[in-house]
């Protein structure tokens, strides 16, 4: 395993009283610095690397450090020694980090930090030692030791970073008219606001940084606000790529030594969620058990040892033990990267890339001959616009792939890019109806020009001053929002266990949106597109299965909805053809019923009575063909009851019908009612109803227990008896 680079870092924060001063309406530097530290530690905790972090405060009321002898290095507190950061540290920062009432020399604090780093990294291997100073420089410093300090920093290989409330070049900027809004647009205090000590301090910072790192040193000086913005992004998941040494072969005798690295692959969160008991939060309290059972009514359990392995082969299941499978399975002879041939790059379609990774292939670092040979191949392929088709196997146990190796020549390196390609079995040949020459869909000239304008207004590349086009929306620079959100929520929950989850951070929302410049530009073209293309949402049919779907809504059995639509026309026809309808017949009871209600030749009660009589007849047949018709009747009954504001008859009929379901074996029919949601008429629909909406919704659910209770209560009402008599 490649050992991860480890670093040791001491955060050194000024908590002296001047840090709490601020201009009205501005956050005091102390609060800003505290946030920087919080965010930083938070990132470290979730990055879960091996970095160690210490925290030194200066300007504290007390003194606690190993150099504090004879009144030297006073008001400097080593709050935390070098160790891996954890939630405890985060909580301490949250609750214990308070402004102090003293001032201390930041150079003294730096010395304490150096001492800490040197003593506590002894015997351990760190790749980087770093001290981070957060201060407003508002204190008298003694410069006499400066050279010694710089010298020691250099010797120990310790790097420095400064975080200040104001930019380093604040003075220059103020002089230059103040119109240059720096790279970070930080609310910098104007240079003239600095006092003498701060100006002097700045000079020293500059002095130290340039003598440590020369020119580049100044880049390690940040403002608080700038840092906050950068730190609000959680560390990206960083993995050291593993080297995969192999040999590229062409034919039997041409071999080139190579090393492959996974260069692009979809990174997953390192940790998965463990299942814990809701009360104890203990993982061990939850046990998971998998049992095997036969596919019979009793779900007879079978011991694991009594099961064997099998595979489906079409309709057959073929028993095939693990041992046999291993014996007979395809065996590859170890890792390989063998060229099968070369082909034109254009024959390899981008959308047919398979797998989840891109491997970069280099020559081994120490092998210059391999480098030359590989370089010859890369350059030859590049100039011919060709790629190698190779058989790739990661190792003896893994399945072989066929993939393409493309040449890639950059300023700083050359390599092959390997991508997996599909097997025949992976491809699906779908044919889609043609779009372009289809008269229905061919866009008009004006529509095309509207889209043309839209594309022009929404280009995500811009020309910079040099005429170079610059990408303004680089996806590969955006951190994966999933991780950012996860860590944000984990952190929030860790610190406030009882709070609900926080909303998505505004910056994260922003990076997932269209860039503002583009959204402003495309307004007008979008409006144009909107007017030129009529786009209308098609009202969807109910997704649920209705009775019509179950029995097929073929021509001879109209489904319930159709009946409603046809009502108008059919009445008229019926009236003309048959004169007045006097009773509900059995051929088309729905039509007759509706006609009776409309004509008002008989009373509503009588019409309902006749209809229910027909329904009972139909149900008496207890065969699915008649169910559809019965459902249509019930639907009509309900509709008419609602429109005439009389819920009682329908409700009591439906209730009695429900009670009779078990005796008459009408469960199947009842299911259809449920699917069509034909329930009691509630108060919301008809004022006189005694059924609440909720009751109506629950009514259809068939619960045996409730059934028994409900039945006697209903039997008292006179109407029900009447209706029952008719059955």
């Amino acid at each position, binding site marked *: 395993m490649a050992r991860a680079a480890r670093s040791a870092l001491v955060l050194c924060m000024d908590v002296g009283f001047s840090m709490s001063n601020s201009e009205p309406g501005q956050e005091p530097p102390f609060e800003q610095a505290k946030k920087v530290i919080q965010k930083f530690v938070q990132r470290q905790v979730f990055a879960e690397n091996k970095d160690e972090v210490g925290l030194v405060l200066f300007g504290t009321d007390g003194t606690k450090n190993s150099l504090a002898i004879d009144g030297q290095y006073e008001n400097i507190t080593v709050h935390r020694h070098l160790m891996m950061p954890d939630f405890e540290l985060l909580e301490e920062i949250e609750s214990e980090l308070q402004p102090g009432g003293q001032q201390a020399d930041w150079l003294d604090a730096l010395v304490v930090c150096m001492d800490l780093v040197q003593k506590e990294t002894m015997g351990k291997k760190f790749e980087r030692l770093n001290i981070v100073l957060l201060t407003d420089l508002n204190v008298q410093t003694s410069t006499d030791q400066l050279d010694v300090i710089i010298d020691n920093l250099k010797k120990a290989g310790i790097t420095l970073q400064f975080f200040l409330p104001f930019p380093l070049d604040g003075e220059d900027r103020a002089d230059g008219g103040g119109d240059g809004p720096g790279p970070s647009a930080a609310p910098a205090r104007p240079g003239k606001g600095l006092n003498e000590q701060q100006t002097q301090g700045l000079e020293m910072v500059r002095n130290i940084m340039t003598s440590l790192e020369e020119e580049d040193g100044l880049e390690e000086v940040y403002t608080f606000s700038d840092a906050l913005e950068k730190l609000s992004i959680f560390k990206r998941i960083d993995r050291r790529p593993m080297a995969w040494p192999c040999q590229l072969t062409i034919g039997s005798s041409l071999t080139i030594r190579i090393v492959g690295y996974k260069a692009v692959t979809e990174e997953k969160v390192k940790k998965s*969620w463990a299942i814990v008991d809701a009360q104890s939060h203990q993982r061990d309290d*939850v046990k998971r058990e998998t049992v095997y059972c036969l596919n019979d009514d009793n779900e007879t359990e079978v011991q694991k040892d009594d099961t064997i392995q099998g595979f489906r082969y079409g309709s057959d299941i073929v028993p095939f033990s693990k041992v046999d499978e291993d014996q007979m399975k395809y065996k590859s002879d170890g890792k390989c990267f063998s060229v099968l*041939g070369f082909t034109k790059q254009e024959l390899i379609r981008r959308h047919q890339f398979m797998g989840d990774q891109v491997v970069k292939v280099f020559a081994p670092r120490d092998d210059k001959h391999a480098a030359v040979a590989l370089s010859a191949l890369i350059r030859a392929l590049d100039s011919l616009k060709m790629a190698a088709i190779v058989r790739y196997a990661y190792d003896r146990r893994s399945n072989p792939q066929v993939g393409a190796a493309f040449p890639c020549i950059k300023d700083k390196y050359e390599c092959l890019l390997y991508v997996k390609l599909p097997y025949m079995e992976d491809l699906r040949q779908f044919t889609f109806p043609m779009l372009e020459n289809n008269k229905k869909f061919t866009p008009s000239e004006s529509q095309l020009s509207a889209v043309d304008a839209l594309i022009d207004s929404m280009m995500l590349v811009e020309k910079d001053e040099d005429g170079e086009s610059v990408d303004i929306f680089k996806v590969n620079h955006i951190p994966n929002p999933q991780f950012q959100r996860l860590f944000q929520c984990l952190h929030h929950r860790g610190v406030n266990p009882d709070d609900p989850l926080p909303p998505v951070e505004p910056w994260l929302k922003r990076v997932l949106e269209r860039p503002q410049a583009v959204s402003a530009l495309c307004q007008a073209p979008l409006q144009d597109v909107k007017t030129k293309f009529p786009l209308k949402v098609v009202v969807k049919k109910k997704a649920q299965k209705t009775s019509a779907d179950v029995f097929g809504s073929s021509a001879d059995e109209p489904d319930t909805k159709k009946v409603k639509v046809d009502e108008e026309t059919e009445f008229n026809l019926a009236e003309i053809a048959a004169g007045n309808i006097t009773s509900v017949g059995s051929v088309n009871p729905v039509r007759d019923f509706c006609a009776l209600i409309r004509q008002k030749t008989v009373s509503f009660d009588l019409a309902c009575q006749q209809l229910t009589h027909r329904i009972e007849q139909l149900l008496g047949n207890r065969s699915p063909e008649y169910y559809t018709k019965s459902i249509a009747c019930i639907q009509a009954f309900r509709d008419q009851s609602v429109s005439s504001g009389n819920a009682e008859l329908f409700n009591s009929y439906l209730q009695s019908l429900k009670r009779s379901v078990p005796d008459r074996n009408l469960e199947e029919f009842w299911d259809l009612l449920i699917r069509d949601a034909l329930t009691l008429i509630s108060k919301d629909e008809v004022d006189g109803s005694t059924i609440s909406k909720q009751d109506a919704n629950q009514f259809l659910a068939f619960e045996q227990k409730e059934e028994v209770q409900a039945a006697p209560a209903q039997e008292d009402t006179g109407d029900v008896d009447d209706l029952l008599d008719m059955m």
Partner: protein
Amino acid sequence: MAEWREYYRNEDDEVEEDEEDSGGDYKISGRDSLVFLVDASKEMFIKGEDGEPSNFDMTMQCVRSVYTSKIISSDKDMVALVFYGTEQSKNPRNSFKHVYVYHDLDSPGSQRVLDIDKLLGEKGAQFAENTLGCGETSLGEALWCCSNLYSDIKLRLSHKRLMIFTCRDDPHGGDGAKDRQARTKAADLKETGVVIDLMHLTKPGGFDVSLFFCDIVSPPEDESELGIQIEPCRKLQDLQKRVRAKELKKRAQSRLTFSLGEGVNLAVGVYVLARTAMKPSAVKLHRDTNEAVRTKTRYFHAHNGGILLPNDMKRSQVYGKKQIVMEKDEVDEIKKFDDPGLVLMGFKPMDRLKLHHHIRPALFIYPEEEQISGSSSMFTALLLKCSEKNVFALCRYIPRRNTPPRFVALVPQREELDQSQTQATPPGFHVIFLPFADDIRTVDAHMGPTASDEQVDKMKEIVHKLRFKYKSDAFENPVLQQHYRNLEALALNMLEPEPIEDLTMPKVQMMDARLGPLTQEFKDLVYPDDYNPEGKPAAKRKTAESGGGGAEKKPKVEMSQDELKNHVAKGTLGKLTVPVLKDACKQFGIRTTGTKKQELIDALTMHFSK
């Protein structure tokens, strides 16, 4: 293909595997069905010129390939094989003369493949003559019989297709009554949702579709589609291609709204045109009966043994030594950013799409007129303009609820037809997934010495000698092929599986022959005499060889129980490597919750601290 349910069993799994949509469309449930209605008249058995296989033979090869591919890719689909124009009759009620139902509508299995094999080649023709024979033709009867096959099925059928294979354009020889009957029966079938296709084969003098069959086949799905191919199939490949294009019902993985902004929304269907075909997962069988068993997973309390319901459990992670606990719902909520859909960010020139920005196989989108009318023309306009301006559309993509967003490039593809007027590439946009910053690893690239022109030119000669035309369907997956051959051998009681040809192996001899002296010449140019590229410098390999060969070389160190106990007591299990820990678990028969290091350590600790 794995059952989709399996993915919901393990709730902790990322929902990334999601795309396993084996069921395909959520709205359509039920099975696909396909009936091959094959003409068995004398004309079908006439051999082609220069030893070309007969139309009948070609059809059987085609049917066989559909059977075997169904077994592999969609074993739930139902297939039937019916002959018409036979002497013998065989059908469920034997009510139809000259119709022979060779295979009833059912999912294809190994026996059926064997049955087809009997009909192949010279012997097959003989066999067909004996069992089927050639007799009178009544397509009407045959279609009627097929419609009974459909109606006898008790399962819900989602997609019904019937393919007629024939080389006779006027099957009833002018008998108007029979023609009429066939038309009526075809109409009946079409009314019940069966799609009828004609796979017409060559006939001397040309096949005239307009004579009779134009009234039998289903009208094209929309007026634009080339419903009836003008040219009959001459070659097996053509026929197979044509059958294959129709045989699979294309299904959208999902239907989404594609929002351009400002309320301009169109509807698109998302399709998977390529997905890694995996060996299907094993089924557990009962030892005594070979009957499939189901698995049930349940959670129970370790102390009181009570069954734990979902809300008796929470989710937790540990960071910075602190346990953070959330409800299952909250874990889902964290992943929710927006409603499912595609949201347009803007456009970029095609050259901004980097070759190496690849993280997943692509998807494909096509407009859904049924959801938002007008989608197709908007989509077509976008497609035309994007491809004309050589740009791709950058979109934010959320495939389903509670799934975090990804950015995708929509790459335009216009329709292309091949020589036989079959669609080679469909019109639509390919959806290419783009990596986030986290997905790109820092590889410490270094610049080594580069090759001289002379060396490069020599390599160009080598490349030139070994060029070929790559085709994406040229390679079969040897692992899958071997697996199915093995199953086939077991299912059919064969002595040993048929050998497979591993197309992924380099044809070394042929390559050597083509290259001739070039290899040596190149080696002389780049390698010094004493350099052996096959030699393995030891130091370099040690660090990196984590997986493969390493396991073989290292003799397996079995841990003794005492050693392990010692590690457990001292808490130093973490120092052991994962393979060692795994072996230890195996050795002592310890069940683990997973294969992550911590899970292995936990399991071992539990076992030995009891």
